[in-house]
């Protein structure tokens, strides 16, 4: 037993040396994780803060000017043109210079003064319909607040029914708060899986794997020796992204680190198991990279990272039950944003444990069979 531990320790030490002695691979281990979390943090947001728009103001009244001033003052809408013909709207949208064109009809002021409903027409560029929908939502909110003030200043009662809105866990509804905790699992999965698969494939391709086999180290010990360094590096990468989330993006951490790391530990073990499984299928580094990538894509797409799992058809929702990343992302978000406790996370923890417990023995079996 002691001898086995010693052999594993030697192998782990050797793995760390191979990973860390090459300056390029040292950089590749840690820089992409930080770079990706910064990149995603800034880029992966459905929130809008620069919406170019154009106005076709046929009313030219004090009321229409006041409404436009509200858009201009919103900090989100940026007026790129005042147009005078309907055909100009088409051209502005087609050429993507404006995302939104607002037309205020000639009888706007009259209808408003007469107490009738005054329409404004809004056209949005639907080439990305999610962006268009978000922008329209902003416009509705601005018009609502215009209405409330207008009614007040004209001695009318406010609207009879108002809706007061409160959002739990993310008061300003920022997409970033949702995205970055989700990235902790995603980037860790990508890197851990690749690292594990590559470290075995590299030895196979170089022929050093055969040399390992003639040493007293047993196949099971080789596997543990390959798995441990990847697990450690996976957890370090997760920590780096966690630090970026807290120190750079200043997203408040509500939960307990112990709970988070317990969950992430289980997840990384499952990821390493999948990596070892891939490595037993491949002969070259190229295959290891391509297979890991082909495997990781559906894991990421069906994880709820960018689009909610609840929107998927049932068939795909069932598929996600086998996806370790689904549980890791859910767990991280709940611990990070909601401050969920371990007892509330049972539904995420046990599937991760099952996936880890299933992939490691299968990987071990495949590993042994490929060797003999």
């Amino acid at each position, binding site marked *: 037993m002691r001898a086995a531990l010693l052999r594993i320790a030697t192998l782990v030490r050797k793995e760390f040396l191979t990973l860390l002695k090459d300056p390029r691979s040292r950089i590749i281990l840690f820089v992409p994780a930080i770079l990706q979390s910064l990149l995603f943090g*800034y880029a992966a947001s459905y929130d809008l803060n620069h919406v170019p728009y154009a106005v076709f103001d046929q009313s030219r009244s004090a009321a229409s000017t006041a409404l436009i001033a509200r858009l201009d003052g919103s900090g989100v809408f940026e007026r790129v043109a005042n147009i005078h013909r309907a055909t100009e709207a088409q051209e502005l949208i087609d050429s993507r210079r404006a995302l939104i064109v607002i037309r205020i009809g000639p009888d706007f002021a009259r209808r408003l003064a007469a107490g009738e409903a005054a329409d404004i027409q809004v056209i949005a560029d639907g080439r990305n*319909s999610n962006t268009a929908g978000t922008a329209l939502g902003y416009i509705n909110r601005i018009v*609502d607040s215009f209405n409330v003030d207008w009614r007040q200043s004209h001695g009318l009662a406010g*609207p009879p029914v108002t809706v007061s809105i*409160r959002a*739990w866990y*993310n008061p300003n509804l920022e997409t970033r708060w949702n995205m970055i905790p989700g990235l902790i699992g995603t980037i860790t999965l990508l890197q851990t899986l690749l690292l594990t698969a590559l470290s075995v494939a590299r030895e196979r391709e170089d022929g050093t794997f055969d040399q390992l086999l003639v040493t007293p180290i047993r196949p099971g010990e080789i596997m543990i020796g390959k798995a441990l360094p990847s697990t450690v590096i996976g957890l370090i990468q997760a920590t780096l992204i966690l630090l970026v989330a807290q120190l750079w993006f200043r997203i408040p951490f509500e939960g307990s680190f112990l709970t988070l790391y317990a969950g992430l530990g289980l997840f990384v073990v499952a990821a390493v198991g999948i990596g070892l499984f891939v490595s037993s299928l491949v002969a070259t580094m190229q295959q290891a990279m391509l297979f890991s990538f082909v495997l990781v894509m559906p894991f990421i797409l069906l994880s709820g990272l960018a689009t909610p799992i609840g929107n998927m058809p049932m068939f795909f929702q069932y598929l996600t039950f086998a996806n370790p990343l689904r549980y890791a992302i859910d767990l991280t978000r709940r611990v990070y944003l909601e401050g969920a406790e371990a007892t509330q996370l049972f539904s995420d923890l046990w599937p991760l444990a099952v996936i880890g417990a299933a992939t490691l023995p299968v990987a071990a079996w495949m590993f042994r069979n490929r060797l003999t």
Partner: protein
Amino acid sequence: MTDRPQPEPRDDAGKLRRVAALVIKESRQILRDPSSIALGIVMPVMLILVFGYALSLDVRNAPLAVVVEDSSSAAREVVAGFQLSPYFDTQVMTSMAEAERAMQAREVDGIVHFPADFARRVAEGDAQIQLVLNGVDANSARIIEGYVLGAVAQSARRRAAEGYANVIAGPVTVQSRIWFNEANDSHYFLVPGLIVLIMTLIGAFLTALVMAREWERGTLEALFVTPVKADEILLGKVIPYFVMGLVGLALCVLAARILFHVPLRGSILVLTGASMLYLLVALGIGLVASSATRSQFVASQIALLATFLPAMLLSGFLFDLRSMPVAVQIVTYVLPARYFVALLQTIFLAGDIWSVILPNAAVLAVMATVLMALARATTRKKLA
């Protein structure tokens, strides 16, 4: 080497023969290796199915708790509006505590709360409905918020039409239209966006790996001692992956039209031309990254960072580019993906609008030329 080879007389037939031989060798290598098949064929098909069927940003049947502490007709009418809406899957509850428990257990995404004095305050004209949202999924929460406000406004308008005075939601109402995608279906931009991902994977990622492998194993140097010239080696690499990329394009266009009924309003010729340009750029990045690093691992990481992630994040495919910080926006201008996404979204949904097509295609053409020249230069250097 000091004795450079003498300039040879032009030998077009020989050149063609050598390139053809290399293309055949490369194609055989692709077909033989299960991992290239996995990336070149399995992956595109999988992406098409997942993007087409599984991914959606449109909220339908969002689970919503409706807490009614007031059983007046005014409240019942607004609640009925929620129950009839295709956007919500409502569960009527009687206490706020029950609803909050359901939200904590993730059974509902939001709570609409009609307080006990709702009917009395409607009569007085200042009733309030509370909406509590789970903000973890901020995008969905915003969409639900919009739907709830819409449902409340609609019931107010209904009451106005029934003759209750002074109940219209506001004097100014917004009539909105979403051009190019009237039904507001997120497949319309997700499926064309796929073409960027697939072309990038085949063009840049696969090529970077394959070429770096040849450098790493020294098989490229073995080629240098044959009569094959540098540009012929490059052509031999580019042609098979170019064809593979075009097959991926054909798959996507067919799936978009036949399976997902995404309109193709521009011409297929313009679409093919634009895709070819992007494919050349992607291939160029793959070739340059591999010959600059000569290591499969590093080349693949560079290809991933410089092409795949930008194609997903920095292209305008999912996330709006104008709302990113200036520094990130500058990066998007350097990378080819944004130009191709602008082209794809326009050609698919808006039509052949030359004011968009020409400038974006021109940038891609320049990038393709520069990258191919660079690939050529880095490959030749090794020959000397």
